[in-house]
């Protein structure tokens, strides 16, 4: 038996099988089925692409390490993602050494999906073809004879349905048989690399095998997809359908998630109170209750929204609508230098910038992906909502409807300003780079399957917790320490003595630059603490203005009352006037006040420079525009 032993993980003799195939071949769904959803994303230095790694479920027989490689169109002119996949396939990557390949091919588009099979088959490693989308053959009036196809290709062919798990155990046993008794040569290995001749050779190979029966060549239209597209891409109904879906998404994220958000919020508050009651009053107990539980709580409070967002996005993606939505908006977005697919991250950005940065991975071209990530901090994320609520109530105390209207204006402006910045950046900074190709595949519409969608939602949600959770918790703990310690003596400072904490000292040092914005050091402390998460601004303002309150409503009411009378130290000049409140709103609108976003952008772009530039650009812009706004309003006679 000449089974090669993996060199990297020598402690196990488990074989590594790589899933290879074109984008949209159903690789990741199959990955889910083989591993039972139990996989982790592994990032690789130097590339922004991540590989999914997992173990095949034991009930399928021998256990394999399964690696899901990025989708590959071409091995001849690859993109960075494809290059990584090709390097792994050729055994040039030191981290992943494949012992066998599962070539995932859409059975309704065999010509396209087998085009680069020659490249895989020539690596002298066992290859098994997994045929996906078999349930769609009938709808496209085709028939595939699996035994004839296997005979024609010279490698085992196993029909699978990753969504139901059908055929997966057959696939693993076929893979096991191939690893035990590798075949030396197959017809697949004869396929050339050069695409035009490869397409020709694949067609000849398929014709010779007699495996495909169809009405006519290349003309198989799925009637259902054509019928739905007639409405979804229609001149008059296309955009109304699109906006209806967007509005439902917003409603789900902000309204349907609210009870869960409240439950998580009060759960963590209760847990914190319990710890403080149970433990004797000490530095440790306060650290656990406020720093640790509070820090974890500030991540958890966004979790319901983000899970709902991931769930609905996966649902839209799985059903086939997402690519249509991207097609509808590609024209305006590509005018701004973005990509049709940018609408998904931009939309996610209204919930939270962090999942939005992850979502930008779906944009294939680097230029458009980076530009999308660049404007994401402007999208009015839900952490800004409590801040705007406080400031707008302070600014417009009388009428609730003007507050609502102003909030809507803020949301729409954030989209508009993002568009302007993207348009300018693509014409000034990136003008020498050509726009990339759209050439986006529109998958066939399919009824959603709930289990795989829930699994994928969970996989995305836990990836979010892993990558975003750690920075958020660390930043909140650091800021808790800053606001509870003085730098000279390592003594615990009660909230009443916050004036002497490190955060307050920083705030006081910042006072010269805060004065042009019309605010004092106490607001500075709020602004610093908002770097953990923007909504922390409200609670830390409550602390510096000595507000005692058990729940948010009394806290906010007390804070508002304080804000109305707060004056600069040693003078009777009011701090919170219409002009300064407006200045603060402008500041929160622009500034990138979220260290977690900075950390996630760094990871996703693999560039500290980009992440730091973003932080400096938006926070600087927010400050300058806030100062200009405050001074202009004052010059015009607004208090």
């Amino acid at each position, binding site marked *: 038996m000449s089974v090669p032993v993996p060199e990297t993980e020598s402690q196990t003799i488990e074989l590594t099988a790589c899933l290879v195939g074109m984008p949209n071949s159903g690789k990741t769904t199959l990955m889910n089925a083989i591993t039972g959803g139990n996989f982790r994303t592994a990032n690789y230095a130097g590339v922004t692409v991540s590989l999914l790694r997992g173990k095949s479920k034991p009930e399928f027989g021998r256990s394999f390490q399964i690696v899901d490689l990025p989708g590959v*169109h071409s091995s001849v002119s690859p993109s960075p993602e494809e290059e990584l996949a090709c390097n792994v396939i050729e055994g040039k990557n030191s981290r992943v050494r494949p012992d066998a390949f599962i070539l995932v091919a859409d059975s309704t588009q065999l010509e396209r999906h087998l085009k680069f099979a020659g490249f895989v088959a020539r690596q002298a490693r066992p290859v098994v073809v997994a045929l996906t989308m078999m349930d769609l053959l009938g709808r496209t009036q085709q028939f595939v004879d699996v035994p004839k196809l296997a005979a024609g290709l010279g490698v085992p062919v196993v029909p699978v349905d990753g969504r139901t798990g059908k055929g997966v155990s057959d696939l693993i046993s076929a893979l096991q048989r191939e690893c035990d008794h590798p075949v030396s040569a197959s017809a697949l290995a004869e396929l050339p690399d050069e695409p035009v001749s490869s397409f020709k050779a694949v067609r000849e190979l398929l014709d010779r095998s007699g495996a495909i029966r169809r009405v006519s060549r290349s003309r198989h239209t799925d009637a259902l997809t054509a019928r739905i597209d007639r409405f979804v891409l229609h001149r008059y109904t296309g955009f109304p359908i699109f906006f209806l879906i967007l509005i439902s998404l917003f409603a789900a994220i902000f309204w349907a998630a609210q009870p869960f958000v409240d439950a998580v919020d009060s759960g963590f508050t209760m847990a914190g109170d319990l710890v403080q009651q149970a433990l004797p009053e000490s530095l440790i107990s306060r650290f656990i209750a406020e720093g640790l539980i509070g820090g974890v709580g500030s991540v958890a409070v966004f979790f319901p929204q983000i899970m709902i967002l991931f769930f609905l996005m996966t649902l839209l993606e799985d059903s086939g609508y997402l690519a249509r939505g991207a097609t509808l908006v590609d024209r305006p977005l590509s005018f701004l230098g973005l990509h049709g697919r940018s609408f998904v991250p931009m939309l996610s950005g209204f919930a939270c910038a962090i999942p939005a940065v992850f979502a930008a991975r779906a944009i294939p071209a680097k230029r458009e992906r980076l530009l999308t990530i660049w404007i994401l901090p402007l999208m009015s994320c839900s952490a800004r909502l409590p801040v705007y609520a406080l400031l707008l109530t302070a600014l417009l105390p009388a009428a609730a409807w003007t507050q609502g209207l102003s909030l809507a204006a803020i949301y729409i402006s954030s989209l508009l300003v993002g568009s302007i910045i993207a348009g300018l950046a693509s014409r000034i900074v990136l003008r020498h780079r050509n726009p990339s190709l759209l*050439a986006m595949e529109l998958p066939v519409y399919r009824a959603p399957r709930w289990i795989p969608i829930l699994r994928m939602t969970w996989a995305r949600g836990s990836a979010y917790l892993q990558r975003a959770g750690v920075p958020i918790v660390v930043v909140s703990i650091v800021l808790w320490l800053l606001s509870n310690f003085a730098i000279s003596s390592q003594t615990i400072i009660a909230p009443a003595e916050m004036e002497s904490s490190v955060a307050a000292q920083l705030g006081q040092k910042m006072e010269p630059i805060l004065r042009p914005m019309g605010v004092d050091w106490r607001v500075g402390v709020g602004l610093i603490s908002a770097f953990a998460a923007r909504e922390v601004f409200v609670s830390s303002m409550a602390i510096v203005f000595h507000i005692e309150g058990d729940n948010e409503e009394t806290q906010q009411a007390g804070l508002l009352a304080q804000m109305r009378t707060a004056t600069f130290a040693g003078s009777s000049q009011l701090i919170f006037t219409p002009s300064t409140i407006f200045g603060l709103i402008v500041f929160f609108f622009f500034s990138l006040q979220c260290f977690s976003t900075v950390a996630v952008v760094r990871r996703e772009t693999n560039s500290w420079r980009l992440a730091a530039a973003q932080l400096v650009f938006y926070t600087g812009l927010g400050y300058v525009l806030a100062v200009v706004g405050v001074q202009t309003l004052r010059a015009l006679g607004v208090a």
Partner: protein
Amino acid sequence: MPLNHWCRIERLEGPQGDRDRLIDLGFTPGEEIVVTNSSPLGDPLVVRVRDALLALRRREAAWIWVEGQ
């Protein structure tokens, strides 16, 4: 190219990299394609090639020359 009218590809133009990518996607000379939809704003177009539906911007579609054009 009119909607829902099958045409045979004659040749491809455009920058080398983009042309290669179009070929990788299945747009090879001699292959039959059809424009099935145009999005509401007129761009991109939806093109069927080798049993797949692809959204192409007009700029990209213009690089694909079909017979009898």
